[in-house]
């Protein structure tokens, strides 16, 4: 479409008014939602207790760390990885079977392993423009299949006891919560303050433009997936340590939990926008709502349903906000 002339003053005004109206809608929805959660929370028995707060952040932490990794993938415009659960299972096995070497070498091995198997997928997406959904479905079967084949379908038990230090609770709060906060800050800083972060946002917003501008699209995408894999591995180590054994089902429903957390935080799946802090908020929001439902005695089915509704609501709000930008 050709823009034949500069937009006249009225059209600019209209656009601005449109935009503020959309933003107002979003603000109202967000305020109402937060108030609703608060009111329901405050009127729920045992919600406002230290113990319950710990329970919320603990359940948010494992999903949250993996979701941080997925945030990198989503901002970079590669949509999603559907291979998070099997990756976590495989890395968990590596972590536990390497325990005889000591905690730190085992952790390092796990992180390198996670980064590599995810980074390879990122390289294919980045350099060969593969469809990430299709690729990671394939990768997910491949990883799960290899893991099952190598272990013979048996659970892997730890070959040492170092892993138990990950189950520490300094000050009564699980270590994974501190790690989540620390990693959120680290990822947020990387996104905002580094050249890699900037190019990740640019590649995510408009890949052909980034390509034509000569930005290192392939490298940026690969690095994002490497980082994501490392973060998946951290979640894997904590999950494996908590369960003290690892089988192919270690990842559970993590893939979709992580996707839900990132989307609930308001990071759009189309790429180019989003942040680590949003993902943290999304993970905590979902954990808090699940917690309320649990305390009020709703069934697991209802909890899962509400999780879905939250994601849907946020996605719609984000979409409305995005449309207001260039209407």
């Amino acid at each position: 479409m050709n823009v034949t002339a500069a937009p006249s003053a009225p059209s600019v005004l209209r656009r601005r008014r449109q935009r503020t109206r959309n933003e107002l809608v979003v603000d109202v929805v967000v305020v109402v939602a937060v108030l609703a959660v608060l009111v329901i929370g405050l009127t729920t028995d045992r919600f406002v207790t230290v113990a319950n707060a710990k329970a919320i952040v603990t359940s948010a932490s494992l999903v949250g760390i993996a979701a941080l990794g997925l945030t990198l993938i989503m901002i970079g415009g590669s949509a999603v990885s559907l291979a998070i659960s099997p990756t976590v299972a495989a890395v968990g096995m590596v972590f536990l079977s390497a325990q005889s070497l000591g905690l730190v070498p085992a952790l390092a091995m796990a992180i390198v392993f996670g980064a590599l198997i995810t980074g390879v997928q990122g390289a294919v997406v980045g350099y060969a423009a593969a469809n990430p959904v299709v690729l990671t479905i394939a990768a997910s079967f491949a990883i799960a299949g290899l893991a099952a084949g190598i272990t013979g379908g048996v659970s892997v038990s730890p070959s040492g006891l170092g892993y138990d230090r990950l189950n520490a609770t300094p000050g009564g709060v699980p270590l994974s919560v501190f790690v989540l906060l620390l990693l959120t800050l680290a990822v947020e800083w990387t996104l905002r303050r580094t050249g890699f972060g900037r190019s990740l946002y640019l590649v995510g917003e408009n890949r052909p433009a980034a390509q034509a501008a000569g930005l290192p699209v392939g490298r940026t995408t690969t690095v994002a997936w490497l980082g994501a894999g490392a973060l998946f591995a951290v979640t894997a180590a904590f999950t494996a340590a908590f369960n003290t054994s690892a089988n192919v089902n270690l990842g559970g429903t993590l893939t979709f939990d992580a996707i839900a957390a990132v989307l609930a935080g308001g990071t759009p799946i189309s790429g180019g926008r989003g942040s680590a802090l949003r993902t943290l908020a999304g993970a905590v929001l979902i954990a808090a709502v699940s917690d309320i439902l649990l305390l009020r005695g709703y069934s697991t089915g209802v909890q899962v349903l509400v999780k879905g509704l939250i994601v849907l609501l946020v996605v719609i709000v984000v979409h409305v906000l995005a449309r207001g930008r260039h209407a």
Partner: protein
Amino acid sequence: MTPTPSTTRTSEELVRVVGLAKSFGGTQAVRDASFSIAAGEIHALCGHNGAGKSTVVKMLSGQESPDGGAIHIGDEPLSLRSRQVAQRHGVALVDQELSVVPALTVAENLMLGDLRTRWLNRSHHARFRSLLDSVGLDHVRLDQRLSELGIGERQLIEIARALGQDARLVILDEPTATLSDVESQYVYASVRKVAAAGCAVLFVSHRLGEVLALSDRVTVMRDGEVVATSAAGELTIDSLIHQMLGEAPHRLSARPARAAGDVALAVEGLRVPGRVEEFSMGLRGGQVYAVAGQLGSGASDVLRAISGLVPAATLRLQVDGKAVRVGSPAAAVRAGIAFVSNDRKSEGLFLDKPISWNLLATRLPDVTRLGVLSRRRWSAALTGLLELCGLERRRAGHDVGSLSGGNQQKVFVGRCLGRDDVRVLLLDEPTRGVDVGGRAAIHALLRDAADRGMAVLFSSTELEELQELADVVVTMHKGVAVRRHEGDTASAVLLREMTHGAEERP
């Protein structure tokens, strides 16, 4: 020279256009367009860019409604509110943009948009078969997928579809612009068949040779008005160009010659299969060069190939005397070649991001230290660039998507300026969709870039832009460079070469 008086053929006129007018915003795209087409006539509509041809085509095909005037087909005056309404009244349009669906079969494509065929059955096959035969596609099967066919064959399918609609008026808007000679011949043959069947044909083309060879009469438009309607037999290429340009003495304005530096870019043996046959050029620093060519001439493909965006291209490049390979845009950038696409929305800017991000997108390594953004370097680089582009500092945080077309283009061009590592700046239609003020500002930016020692190469179809901006113009026609012009050249010569190729050709 006075325009040739129009021949009057009132007796059998099928289509009459009387005093059509249309304005967009403040600009009057069409002022007063009147002409008529007889049944069985091939009528050409010519005019330079911005003359109003495409607006007339849009009004005739129901895509725009006229502000004034009337369209008659047969005896009835028509109000063509949409393409569907126009189609129902027997107007078929074959567009420059192919509107066939590659994933469907030939028969399915012929059915698309056909108001009488609700679903496909055997009874239509015979009719479709004869349609295909009538456009010379005897070798194509009805159940073949369109993706298996070449672009010329797809264009013919589109013509066949227009025929199948029992059209009374068939409009062809630059049907051969992207076709090879052989493919074009098929299109000409089928256009003649369409006319022989009693349709009125309106033929819009930039290729003046084919206009004269194919059509019965030619209507020329200039600045939104019909200049003349003449019998094709009475016209020559030169008299046609004269009608298109008018009396205004379009010449390269005398301007101080820029000091040419050393050869910054040498292109040799550039070939893009099916688009560019052979292109070689040397560009000196400090000069502005242009490749002038219409849609499909290969001008834009030359720029894209040099920027590493055409994997199928073969070429030898030297930047500052050193051979470089441009397998990818990133490699071209590393070699010092920056590219400004003609599609700034999908292949240029990051509309959702601020001006500052866009301006600095290509120089992240310069504003970071060990990979970490340095606030000082970021704002120093930004200040310099904003000043260079004439953008206000306080707007640096605005999303680029909220800017006017002109300012968006300034950001796009500005992104490639003010850096020592860029030796060659390539721009594909640098002022497309830019208003007059923005256009002057962008021209100033490009001249300034050349003065700083860059070699600037742009492609354009606009004579004024070529005359104003370029030190050297290379005209292109059908994938071949026609001639290189330095200094004073008449617009008529440029236009002749862009539309008709070299003199020697008949």
